[in-house]
């Protein structure tokens, strides 16, 4: 299989990818529109307060429309001719090396363009309502536009350097949006944490780029992939691991998962768009995009699988213990991305399913978050599910849309999540039975904690705070939720039945030869659904049948650990932060006292020497004569000694 994948590229990248012409030459506009919006809103200042948010929304909408037009155009081409390359200008030409600002529009990026612009547009619309009363609304929309632009740049880039640009851009937007309400110090801290952990991941990206240039002399996809098969296995393994490191940072995979929970500090639309639907999936995109490299390195793929499995279980366990609705959803995001990463690690057998799950997840998780936002909107920004309950009456639309998302995520047929997750677990089982079993276990836990969220929020008794008056959200918020809910319901079926999506992506990621597994697919599906239902049942028993205390019970050791994210922060703190702080403090001391102290010390020494020497100048003429006589002995001695 590896040879096949490599062959596609090594036969000459240029042949497959056509110069972008016609309507495809407008690819750059996809990015430019929201970027323009961000620039106008940021530079325009208060003058744009009135129309800014709407303009931003419109621009993203335009971007979506353009994306859709391109998509339709692309459908008009045969499967092999759906990749277009647009080179705008040479960015950093140095000798033989050059980085061009160029875009590559192919089925994979097309899928992302549609997801990003569509969900992004919906979130913009939603935010019009959600942020209506915020004085800094304009800035918020500017950041959102900036994010959309960066995300589009990330997925449309035709070289790793440009991917890196988008990669950092979304990181910046994420930082700005998480810290949007940074008047709260912990929100500011959360934003910083997210950025810094992402930067740790970026080490991988940087090093990968450096290694690519050294190895291939370029970072353009075409060049790198074409040369991949000629590179040594060591380089490929290294590249794979480095890209994985980058992906773990951006996609909150282990070991760089800790920022995502805190990132919920941002306004909920942000959580929906960035920390659920799009940005956090960039890592998956990166791995899938780099498939020619991963195809050639079993070791790298194994690492990817391991990260995916660990994270999906980790996120799932954490999700069971969270009372904060957004944090529970965040844990779930982490877990779901774990699935995608797992799938991506399976190689050609899983790439398409990873992206498929990414798409469906984008819809249902965004829907869930927007629903959560709607709930919070109605509950005066309270996020503690223990003070919710029985909201289905108060917020019917929210309930229904949230419910659709819920069913999709736990994989109930025929909701979207069922199709995508089912495929991943199947592929995993085919690859390795234990990986598959872990994935099934994850599905069960997912069902449990998502049911818990559902039950605690919409069912049971009212546990509201005294002055809470839950109400349904305005149309600008509910309409996007409805649209997303529709997607959660139908997208899976629409994409999977007939293998449409898989074949759509095939030119990019290749395809795996069918692999027969001992158990027929239908049985597997049955098992998965059963396990999920068991999870729902347990949740039902625990959270619907029993009253939910307002204060969280102490719980078992495991619960407490999960509630604390398995002490990830304590771990990071004791392993990195504290030693880092000590090191910093020590170095500051070292710098002041030792390095600078040496300098000042030498100066003081000269001064001291001066003071000491000065005492020889006693003022007594006889002492001076003595020193002259000593000098005479010295001078004559020196002359005589030379001749000895």
């Amino acid at each position, binding site marked *: 299989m590896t040879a096949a994948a490599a062959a596609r590229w090594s036969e000459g990248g240029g042949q497959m990818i056509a110069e972008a012409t016609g309507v495809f030459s407008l690819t750059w506009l996809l990015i430019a529109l929201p970027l323009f919006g961000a620039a106008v809103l940021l530079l325009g200042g208060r003058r744009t307060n009135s129309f800014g948010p709407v303009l931003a929304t419109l621009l993203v909408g335009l971007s979506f429309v353009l994306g859709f037009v391109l998509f339709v155009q692309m459908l008009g081409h045969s499967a092999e001719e759906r990749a277009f390359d647009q080179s705008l200008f040479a960015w950093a030409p140095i000798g033989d090396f050059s980085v061009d600002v160029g875009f590559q529009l192919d089925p994979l990026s097309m899928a992302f363009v549609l997801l990003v612009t569509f969900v992004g547009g919906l979130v913009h619309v939603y935010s019009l309502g959600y942020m209506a009363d915020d004085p800094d609304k304009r800035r918020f929309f500017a950041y959102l536009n900036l994010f959309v632009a960066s995300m589009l740049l990330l997925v449309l880039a035709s070289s790793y350097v440009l991917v890196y640009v988008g990669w950092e851009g979304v990181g910046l937007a994420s930082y700005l949006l998480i810290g949007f309400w940074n008047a709260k110090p912990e929100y500011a801290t959360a934003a910083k944490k997210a950025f810094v952990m992402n930067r740790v991941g970026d080490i991988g990206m940087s090093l990968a780029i450096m290694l690519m*240039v050294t190895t291939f002399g370029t970072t353009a996809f075409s060049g790198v992939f074409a040369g991949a098969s*000629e590179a040594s296995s060591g380089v490929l393994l290294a590249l794979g691991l480095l890209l994985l490191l980058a992906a773990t940072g951006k996609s909150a995979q282990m070991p760089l998962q800790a920022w995502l929970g805190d990132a919920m500090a941002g306004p909920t639309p942000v959580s929906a768009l960035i920390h659920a639907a799009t940005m956090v999936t960039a890592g998956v995109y990166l791995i899938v995009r780099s498939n020619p490299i991963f195809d050639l390195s079993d070791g790298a793929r194994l690492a990817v699988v391991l990260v995916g499995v660990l994270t999906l279980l980790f996120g799932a366990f954490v999700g069971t213990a969270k009372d904060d609705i957004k944090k529970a959803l965040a844990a779930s995001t982490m877990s779901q991305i774990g699935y995608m990463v797992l799938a991506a690690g399976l190689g050609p057998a899983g790439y398409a399913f990873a992206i498929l799950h990414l798409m469906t997840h984008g819809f249902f998780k965004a829907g869930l978050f927007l629903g959560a936002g709607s709930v919070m909107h109605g509950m005066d920004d309270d996020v503690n599910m223990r003070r919710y309950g029985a909201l289905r009456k108060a917020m019917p639309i929210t309930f229904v849309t949230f419910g659709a998302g819920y069913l999709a995520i736990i994989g109930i047929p025929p909701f979207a999540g069922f199709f995508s997750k089912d495929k991943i677990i199947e592929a995993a089982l085919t690859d390795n039975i234990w990986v598959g079993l872990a994935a099934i276990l994850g599905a069960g836990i997912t069902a449990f904690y998502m049911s818990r969220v559902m039950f605690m929020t919409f069912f049971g008794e009212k546990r509201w705070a005294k002055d809470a008056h839950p109400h349904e959200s305005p149309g600008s918020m509910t309409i996007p939720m409805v649209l997303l809910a529709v997607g959660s319901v139908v997208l899976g079926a629409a994409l999977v039945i007939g293998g449409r999506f898989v074949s759509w992506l095939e030119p990019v990621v290749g395809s795996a030869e069918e692999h027969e597994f001992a158990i027929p697919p239908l049985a597997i599906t049955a098992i998965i659904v059963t396990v999920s239902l068991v999870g729902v049942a347990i949740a039902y028993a625990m959270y619907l049948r029993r009253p939910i205390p307002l204060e969280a019970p102490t719980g078992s050791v495991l619960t407490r650990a999960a509630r604390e994210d398995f002490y990830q922060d304590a771990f990071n703190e004791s392993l990195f932060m504290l030693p880092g702080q000590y090191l910093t403090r020590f170095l500051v001391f070292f710098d002041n006292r030792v390095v600078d102290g040496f300098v000042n010390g030498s100066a003081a020494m000269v001064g001291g020497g001066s003071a000491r020497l000065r005492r020889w100048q006693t003022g007594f003429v006889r002492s001076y004569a003595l020193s002259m006589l000593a000098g005479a002995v010295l001078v004559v001695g020196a002359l005589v000694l030379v001749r000895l």
Partner: protein
Amino acid sequence: MNDFPVLTTLGVLPFAGALVVAALPRGRELLAKQIALAVTLVMLALTVAMALAFEPNAAEPFQFVEKTPWIEQFGINYAVGVDGIALVLIALAVSLAPVVILAGWNDADDNERHRPQTYFALLLALLGCIVYVFAATDLFLFYVAFEVMLVPVYFLIGMFGRGQRTYAAVKFLLYSLFGGLLLLAALIGLYVVSVRELGTGTFDWTLLAGMPIDPDTQKILFAGFFFAFAIKAPMVPLHTWLPDAAASATPATSTLLVGVLDKVATFAMLRLVIPIFPDASEWAAPFVVTLAVISIVYGALVAIGQTDMYRLIAYTSVSHFGFIILGIFAFTEIGGSGSVVYMVAHGLSTAALFIVAGYLVKRRGSSLIPSFGGVQRVAPILAGFFLFAGLASLAMPGMASFVGELTVLIGSYQRWPVAAAIAVIGIVLSSLYVLIMYQRVATGPATENVKGMRDVFPRELVAFAPIIALTIAVGVFPKPVFDVVNPAIERTYSFLNVEPVEPDVPDVDALTEYGVTEGEGTE
């Protein structure tokens, strides 16, 4: 254009301006400022014209050359000319000059001892020295400018600084003189070698570059040159003058000092050290690269621990200079060109940081980070500028520093993979020092400290806008800079004997052999 002595005009104009400004009587402060600004704007126009007339791919190394005998007994000429690197750095200096003058418009007004006239005269004089340092193609002229430059900076810090200004000024001067005098010794040594090698002694770069020097002499002379530039750059452990100087100087001074003047060192490494001492440069490269990496990590770590904004910025510069030197001593075209772009980027980002910090300090009267908090609440545009400056410093894509940092890292990885891999840690540390400072200063609820703080004035806005524009322009479209710099870098490295770096898998069609060490890049 070719006959017009544009470089001399550029160099002399600020000195003339300085004399005029200094001669203005008390009470004509505003006129002094206006003249200073006008002079810098004229210089900017000249520089733009020069840049437009510059031929990047010309055969001769220098353009706009002027040469007149000066001290013939020692073969010293008044010789100026620019290559791509010098052009870019002069452009940087000249672009920043009006910005800092505008940004520091009132910095000298409340000084009880000295007149603003003196301040602006010194700034202009400094600018003149900077132009000469970059334009000199005669090593003696270079040295003269290199040393004379100390005088205005010394007075700028000592007369118009704050806090421990005297200590800082003296420390700066002595540190620099110490290096400078050793440089002088080495320069004379070089001259003596030139007498022996060429028959007549000379300080002419075109004759000295590539001159055969026996390896041992080369090493000694290299040491003299490098030591001076390592102090100036500044490299750990010779950096401690910088935080003190930056903490005491006015933002305008710091900007010119750190943003432009210290580039002289890295510029000289490219212009002088490598072409004249190629063998010694290769010999010392591992050592230099090690020091550079130490500077990167050490500077960043110490920056994280600072409580004074100015000191913090100074330490970030230590870290950034590490990158620049790493790029230079990578001996790859990518690293070299990258380092020049990095110099420009660092000039811009440091200027941004110092200027915004100056705005903040001016309002608050303190440069201590803990004495701020929640600035974003009361002065959102100012906070935005601050964040922008911080992002420019941490090499956010789309900004100039990203171009420099990425290319430096790529270029140095080609030759020194381990060093480059360690240097990458710098990108995490840079995000830490920038964001921690931003968090403490700008975020959180508005504290008592910043209540009533005014947002930026129009003048401050106008001063800062060009930096934003340039930072983004170079970040988005650095090609013009590369086009100008590349030939010069190529020429610089052509003096070396290092093997050119070729991609392991260069061309799909011409693949014959490749080999990459197992596990490379996993550090």
